[in-house]
């Protein structure tokens, strides 16, 4: 495969870029693979990539019913951070964040990871205490964060109003190496790298059934025919329940809509990501100049990828109060994605009742930032049967009452 570089682009330019080949192959599926991953979103592709890179397992197919990266990978607000309270969360999100640091070079595909820094605003005494606690936890978890003063917040985010009449900014939890990345590029970069390792990324291939024998998975039925495999990884945010049903088990999951919006592009004015959890809004500025805005999820089950407008209203209302200058910007586009919410709002990376079948789901509103860490841990779990990164996120924790609740520090989980 042609290596990407400024030089290659220049060379190609001379022949009007007619020399570029496909970023990933479009193979017809084999009858059998060692591993089949269902879902070619970021998490599925990353799982496949690290199966190959870390464990030499490359006889792998990644099946996608639509187009790769077409789910939540391409619908989120691209925030990357690891300033989580609970050890298991901090571990997997920090692993992910660290992998993002080198992802462009690792994949030879520029995912534009931009460690511009993430601030979570503390706007009530309760939040101040919650974030101080998180800062203490992070220090012991090897996550570099600090609790900063309102003045420092204003320094870092000049456009913010720290003395709002309703919720003055009392401080913030600052993670200097948090940031954003280009979401589509993450999926495309992984797909290209997987394809390069000889894996099959198969789009427009819907899984219609899961085959098993004696409680062990043997393969899947797809719109492109049956495919056998020894191990099956189900990584289909938004549709996990449907797949689980095919595999014969049920999940502690509900699917709800999460919305986001962007403003028209303006010149750079905010070089960090700001999250205001008390008022349920967060905002960053894309490299194009759009203000990228997200808020809270809807409260009812929904598969339409259309949320309710009053959530947009609440989010915008909050951000106009926090950033008065956006009042005269305009909303360019709003959209929704379907997110899987588990009983404790933390993900599930786990073996399942069906032997050889593994599931990765329930990322709620926090999936994008976890992609590489999730793939790394999931690959280890599938290859070795256990992984310290995923252990705490097992399916049986709900039965034991062993929850991973991130909402305890911040108002919202992600």
């Amino acid at each position, binding site marked *: 495969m042609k290596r990407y*570089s*400024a030089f*290659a*682009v220049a060379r190609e*330019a001379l022949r*009007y870029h*007619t020399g570029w080949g496909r*970023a990933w192959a*479009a193979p017809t599926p084999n009858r059998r693979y060692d591993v089949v991953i269902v879902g070619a979103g970021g998490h599925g592709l990353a799982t496949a990539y690290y199966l190959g890179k870390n464990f030499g397992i490359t006889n792998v197919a990644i099946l996608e019913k639509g*187009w790769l990266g077409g789910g939540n990978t*391409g619908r989120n607000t691209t925030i990357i951070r690891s300033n989580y309270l609970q050890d*298991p969360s901090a571990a997997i999100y920090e692993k992910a964040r660290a992998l993002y*640091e*080198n992802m*462009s070079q690792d994949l030879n*595909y*520029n995912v534009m990871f931009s*460690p*511009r820094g993430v601030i979570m605003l503390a*706007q*009530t*005494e*309760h939040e101040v*205490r919650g974030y101080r*606690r998180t*800062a203490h936890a992070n*220090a*012991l*978890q090897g996550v570099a964060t600090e609790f900063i003063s309102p003045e420092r917040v204003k320094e870092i985010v000049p456009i913010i109003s720290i003395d709002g*009449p*309703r919720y003055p900014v009392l401080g913030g939890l600052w993670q200097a190496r948090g940031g954003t990345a280009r979401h*589509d590029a993450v999926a*495309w*970069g992984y797909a290209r790298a997987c394809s390069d390792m000889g894996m099959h990324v198969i789009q427009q291939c819907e899984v219609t059934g899961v085959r098993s024998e004696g409680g062990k998975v043997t393969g899947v039925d797809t719109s492109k025919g049956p495919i056998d495999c020894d191990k099956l990884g189900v990584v289909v945010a938004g549709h996990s329940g449907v797949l689980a049903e095919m595999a014969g088990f049920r999940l502690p999951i509900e699917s709800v809509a999460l919305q986001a919006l962007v*403003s*028209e592009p*303006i010149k*750079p004015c905010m070089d960090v990501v700001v999250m205001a959890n008390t008022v349920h809004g967060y905002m960053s500025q894309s*490299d*194009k100049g759009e203000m990228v805005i997200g808020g809270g999820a809807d409260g009812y089950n929904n598969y339409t990828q259309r949320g309710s*407008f009053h959530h947009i*209203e609440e989010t*915008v*209302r909050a951000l*106009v109060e926090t950033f*008065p*200058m*956006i*009042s*005269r*910007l*305009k909303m*360019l*586009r709003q*959209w929704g994605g379907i997110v899987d919410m588990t009983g404790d709002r933390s993900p599930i990376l786990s073996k399942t009742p069906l032997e050889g079948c593994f599931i990765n789901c329930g990322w709620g509103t926090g999936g994008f930032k976890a992609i590489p860490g999730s793939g790394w841990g999931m690959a280890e779990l599938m290859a070795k049967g256990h992984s*310290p990164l995923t252990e705490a996120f097992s399916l049986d924790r709900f039965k*034991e*009452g062993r929850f991973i609740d991130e*909402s*305890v520090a911040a108002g919202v989980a992600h």
Partner: protein
Amino acid sequence: MSTRIASHGRLIDRNTTVSFTFNGKSFIGHAGDTLASALMANDQMMIGRSFKYHRPRGLVASGAEEPNALVGLGTGSRFEPNQRATTTELFDGLSARSQNHWPSLEHDIGAINSLFARFLPAGFYYKTFMYPRSFWKSVYEPFIRQSAGLGQVPTERDADTYEHFYAFTDVLVIGGGVAGLQAALTAGRAGAKVLLMEQSAHWGGRAPVDGGTIDGAPVEEFVEQAVSELEAMPNVTLRNRCMGAGIYDHGYALGYERLTDHGPAQPGPRHRLWRIRAKQIVTATGAIERPLAFAGNDVPGVMLASAMRDYVVNYGVTPGQRVIVATNNDDAYRTAITLHEAGVQVLRILDARNSGGGPLMSVARELGIRIDCGRAIGKVKGGKRVTGVSVCAQEGQGGALEDVACDAVAMSGGWSPVVHLWSHCGGKLTWDDAHAMFRPDPQRPPTGADGLGYVTAAGAANGALALDAVLEDATVAASAAARAAGFKSKSVAPPQGAASPEAPLEPVWLMPRQAETPLRMKSWLDYQNDVKVSDVQLAAREGYESVEHTKRYTTLGMATDQGKLSNINGLATLADALQAEIPQVGTTTFRPPYTPISMGAIAGEARGEVFQPIRKTPMHDWHEAHGAEWEPVGHWRRPYAYRRPGESTHDAVMREVKNTREAVGMLDASTLGKILVKGPDAGRFLDMMYTNMMSTLKPGKCRYGLMCSENGFLIDDGVVARIDDDTWLCHTTTGGADRIHAHMEEWLQTEWWDWQVYTANLTEQYAQIAVVGPMARTVLETLGGMDLSKESLGFMEWRDGALGGIPVRVYRISFSGELSYEIAVPASLGQALWDKIADVGAAYRIMPYGTECLHILRAEKGFIMIGDETDGTVIPQDLGLHWAISKKKEDFLGKRAQERSHMTDPDRWKLVGLETTDGSTLPDGAYAVAEGVNPNGQRNVQGRVTSTYHSPTLGRGIAMGLVLHGPDRMGELLEFPGTDGKTYTAKITDPVFYDKDGEKQNV
């Protein structure tokens, strides 16, 4: 040059001149002008720079689809970036600036990108800027961000206000063109309640420009009659300057009304966001002309043919004097004819169709306009302005047949219905081969709560392009909508539209058909984002085959016009590259809003003092007047401390604690939840709600109770008072009142609906005042009216009575360890009682105290605080509250959950007191470290601080925390690394630091 002409200009008033500035230069326009037409009248064709290559950009369109003419409008607190000149009505004093260039529009450094365009193809940044790694954040991104963005950043707080309005209607008609008017008439005559919205300031849409007749009369007459008839109908509301912004589920639609944008001096709200519920929606949103893809089609002076016609007919301005028209359909001939009539020279009509057009072509020919069939534009010459074109054969690679000098080019690639609103909520599209366009598929409309369609497209928006077809279609659509909304429309024949018949168009997606690469690299699809035919072809070549991939890889259609001009051309180009049919390639999803709407309008009235409700107690103003520092608790505001002149907040808190312990303090406890629970099954019900036994509580007595969720976690606590045989009053935490009341009602309504229990939330009926401290009884006895002696009102008892002549209920309970009374009084008398207590208390050094003092008092006494010791993961057993968990009860909410393996795990962290060895105060939220690290390399921990304060009473730091096997490790030392670099050492102790035997509260 572009200029005002003597004729035409139906929308402008030539007698009224309006002055405005563009980039600081003063210009004159007329009333009725848009900023775009006024600029054109002043020969200001170049209005902006493109996003990526900073290419000169001029007007392409005349309406909401305009991709280029974006300006920064206004100044200071009324500055707004990215305003469309084409939809900005001109007003006196308007000031606009062009965007995305430095130092100036004419001389822009960024334009250098244009020279390197060849090296900056679609997605080049995915392939570059990777090495060395550190450069992305430090060098590459800053560089990219410098060129990023379009409009300037507003710097001041918005001076305008906004509002919402809830409207309910039977039929919502979106679009005030002839289709919309006819639809409104039809539905209105049927008796339906109709709301008709038009985004512009004018009714009639583009039909008056296109000509033709309705029932034998000019279109304009029909428009006037329709509007006056509609205005006369009581069941019809007309709204112009009000755009249908989005359609959502269950008949919800957004209307974006611009009230003062055309005259910012006017008082009142700037925008009004209509939140509409409609039984049926008719989208009469018209159609948008497609550009043609030929080299140099982005040079200022190249415009949509229909737009050029609009400017002449509506505003009496022309973009040039010598015009070339390029088309693949008959409609562009109308432009040629109009220009000719207006005295503008039409040098050529290049009709890509070998056979040319229909009757309109003959008309043009008779006017003496030269028409070349099978011809195309090979290339447009000129940089900041069109200077000429080279003509070539459409079937060819672009070899020039002749060069023609001209100063403007009109192009028409056919029309695309505006299907955005139809599609917002799931309406599907079908490909119409004859007209080469996607139109709504009536078989697959958006469906509502009843599972039936609730949106109908009408007129051009439905693919009916000819005037007669438009009126026919609108009538049918509106009758159907009215019927679906429950109104039988009398079948009246639609008015007869008559316009010149048209020969079929011939799809042209690239001009010339086999244009060579260098030409394709100059053939624009998306003007604002600089996406060219060659970019889409590159995306296809690299495997970005899904239309979504292509769109995201090339950024086609992602600019502020959301691809209104570029989507179909891009799609066709992609289909061609993939050798697939257009419908197979599919379309991208359309997302609201139709055109961008202001954040201010979305936020509505919710700003400043009405941003969010603030809940105030009856004594709020008194606190304010006495130096209260406020702490938001939920939506409540509670005094954190009362600062006196010269005091720091910390000083104030210390003073309040000392004074309360030594003399007496008073606390506004009104925010505590008060829920009345009554009925034969009330006791049984409360036994389920609380972990304790409440049914056995005696009337007149109080008991502290704990509430857990069904998942076992502690969610609330408070004192429960038995009022009488079948009545209890449950106190909750401040944050808990509404939540816990809802929680109770939920269980009563959805699980135990056969139990006889009623609840009432009385939280706000009473102001509650805590009088706390050794002198508390003395103060209240001085106030007089009740015997509050130990004998008549023992600890954990309550009585009704009067104090100082005010009816009260006194609870003798203590959250501080002091002698303490909580006095409930009707809220309207709260301030009165507060004043009386303050007055008589003065002699005994009474002082008000705030929440922080409250916290310290309770911490010294080892009382837990919901939200401090608990965080949603803590069960009562963790806090040593076994005494409050009934062993006798078979069941209570949380009991089963607390039997799960992890909940009974002996290794759960348990509550203890913590004393620093040096008397300092432990950092809030600090963790106690243990040996080693876990498999993920994280330092092992064995406990954490849940509350920590400096205790003025003990003169040292005190804290509570949850610690592994804590209660069995009294006296052991723990290490707490702080984030300040220090490590704190603390001894595990009993959590009760003060008056362990409770003598003080029992006196």
